[in-house]
């Protein structure tokens, strides 16, 4: 295909990605090395605010941003190098804690706390999603033909439901005396407070993610199972392979590209875990990298956002993603090379 034709085909798509993803990304990259702040003057201001019956007036020295001739605040932008990254990583404290092998102190620093959870979340849910998805796919494939339609439908529900709402519905089952908690209390015979324990919240978040994503893995694997070569299977049977051996040596190798595909998507999605933190209000116990960025970007009541630190934290998240993807990228590169030659 000529370059011109190629450019016309991919042009619109590339343009949109440049405009809405690449440019913001470049500006985030740049912002992580700069700090922009208003210029403050110390002035005495008298402020009167309402009390219940009479007004309360106070006069105090306040830091007030300087305004220019047009009434817009004067700001200055400084190059700060890696300072924002240092603010996020807090290397001194982290190193001090590490050299004492004091992991619990290290994990009270926001970034490391978030990194611990994010990585663990990614690595724990990945095998669970793959196994659950594969198990459902095999089981549905085993079921009577007439039942398969309804089974697929029900199995897909957790995947299609709006994530915000899915998380809420699970949360209601467990929060306070929600019925699942009540059931567990009844079954185990003692009082349980899921949202009062770090490990319980974390487990619930793993559960929610597997519940939400396993159907995606299922439907992909199920589609793959439809294309398993029946001749190979039959010859395996003739060779006396057991059911398990057939799964292990025929079906799973056939599904391997799909397993890689699902893993890839899942790695990317779970590394930016965010909905769960908000949905389960778990900030007191566990936070994730994307939540950290989001929190830094959320303006406080006075409209201040920590843009530089947020950019730095976003860039660090990206680096993590790229590291996770490297093995897959190398494989894609080899495939590409072999395809061309």
């Amino acid at each position: 295909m000529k370059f011109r034709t190629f450019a016309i085909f991919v042009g619109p798509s590339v343009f949109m990605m440049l405009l809405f993803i690449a440019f913001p990304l470049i500006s985030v990259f740049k912002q992580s090395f700069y700090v922009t702040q208003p210029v403050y003057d110390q002035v005495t201001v008298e402020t009167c605010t309402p009390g219940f019956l009479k007004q309360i007036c106070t006069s105090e020295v306040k830091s007030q941003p300087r305004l220019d001739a047009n009434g817009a605040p004067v700001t200055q932008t400084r190059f700060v190098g890696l300072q924002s990254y240092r603010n996020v990583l807090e290397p001194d404290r982290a190193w001090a804690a590490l050299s004492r092998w004091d992991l619990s102190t290290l994990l009270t620093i926001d970034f490391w706390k978030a990194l611990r959870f994010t990585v663990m979340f990614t690595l724990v849910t990945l095998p669970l999603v793959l196994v659950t998805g594969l198990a459902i796919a095999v089981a549905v494939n085993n079921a009577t033909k007439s039942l398969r339609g309804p089974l697929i439908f029900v199995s897909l529900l957790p995947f299609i439901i709006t994530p915000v709402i899915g998380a809420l519905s699970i949360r209601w089952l467990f929060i306070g005396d929600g019925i699942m908690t009540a059931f567990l209390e009844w079954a185990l015979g003692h009082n349980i407070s899921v949202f009062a324990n770090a490990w319980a919240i974390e487990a619930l978040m793993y559960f929610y993610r597997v519940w939400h994503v396993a159907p995606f893995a299922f439907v992909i694997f199920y589609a793959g199972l439809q294309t398993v070569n029946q001749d190979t299977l039959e010859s395996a049977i003739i060779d006396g392979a057991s059911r398990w051996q057939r799964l292990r040596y025929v079906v799973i190798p056939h599904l391997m590209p799909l397993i890689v595909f699902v893993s890839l998507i899942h790695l990317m999605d779970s590394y930016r875990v965010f909905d769960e933190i908000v949905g389960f209000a778990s900030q007191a116990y566990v936070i994730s990298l994307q939540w950290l960025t989001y929190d830094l970007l959320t303006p406080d009541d006075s409209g201040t956002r920590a843009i530089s630190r947020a950019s730095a934290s976003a860039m660090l998240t990206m680096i993590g993603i790229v590291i996770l993807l490297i093995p897959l990228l190398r494989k894609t590169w080899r495939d590409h090379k072999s395809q061309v030659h």
Partner: protein
Amino acid sequence: MLMKRLVLAGAISLLAGTAYADCAFENKMEIKSLTAGFAAWKAVTDAMAECGNVQAELDQEFRKKQPDAFAANPSLYDIGGVANSTILPLLAAGTIRPLDDYVAKYGQQLKPNQLIKVDGKTMAIAMDVNAQHLMYRSDILGDLGIAAPKTYDDVLAAAAKIKAAGVVDYPLGGTYKTGWNLAEEFVNMYLGNGGTFTDANNMPTINNDAGVKSLETMKALTAYMDPEYLVSDSTYVQQQFQQGKIAMANLWATRAAAMNDAAESQVVGKVTMAAAPMGSVRPASSLWWDGIVIAKNISDAKAEDAFRVAMEGIDKDMVQANNDVAVWLIDGYVPGPLAAGAAATAAAGAVPYPASAQMSIMHTALGNGVADYLTGAKDAKTTLADIEAAYTTAAKEAGLIK
């Protein structure tokens, strides 16, 4: 008696809902407002809408949108709804206009208390005040012979008795959800103990005895709460009250009406509103207000119209139709028993929330940091030191500390 009055009030509000007094003038220009979404704003914006051509936006994301939207030229909105703290970015960026001329022309009915003044200029018109104060189940405390708690020691003693009696699931409720709510609880407690948050150079000043004492009181209270206190927000505590699961809580005045809402509550008429418990210096609470501002980047004629519309929104008719929705500052408001707690808290000397740019940063740092002490991850001194460190980093980035 109370029931009767409530029913009556309900009936009146129903009537008024259908036959509101009409707007005093016919609004020709298109006026847009951006406010928070709670019940008081709903009432006010509905009243504004009667003037015609008013587009009210009640948005939970208003905090993120307001500064940018008002800075645009022309401003995307004409009327803004603000509180103590959310007015700050607008003031700082100079995107709202002084209202003195309009007040002189159209605002005769406003009380002096309603005019928010910064350096002598009226920048906003307040409509209601809000504060956290003590609510308790008078039936339970009465049965157990407990006097109304006045201090946090009283509260803890009462909680111990209620727990021993085992009449409710948990003696106490608390809006301890990590983040803004939890920080607000600390702010209340710390103000009650006479603390200040920052000094003249914007350096943090919370790592002291008052700070430690505040944290210790909070932790002592949590022993009597639902163990899931770190996820419980105002709505959750309100629900616990309504379902009869808790006996006492320091809750927002705007939540008082819900206790007596027969459609939701199983404790109608059993909850008494009292002043916030005393800290060592003053009540452990802070006063908040909500009010209206007008954008600067719009034509003067439009601003004048917007102001008139806003005045219609916070007039006597609106208050009479929505008396119990908030503790109104507006002429015509009849404080009922539901407002008694807020009134007593203010009378006992509670101070306004010390809103400022550095305070907002402190609030965020507290919201993220206090939980570590309550969960036992850090001791009190370390927690406060870490919060100060987080504050210092953020304040430096914001340019407040050199």
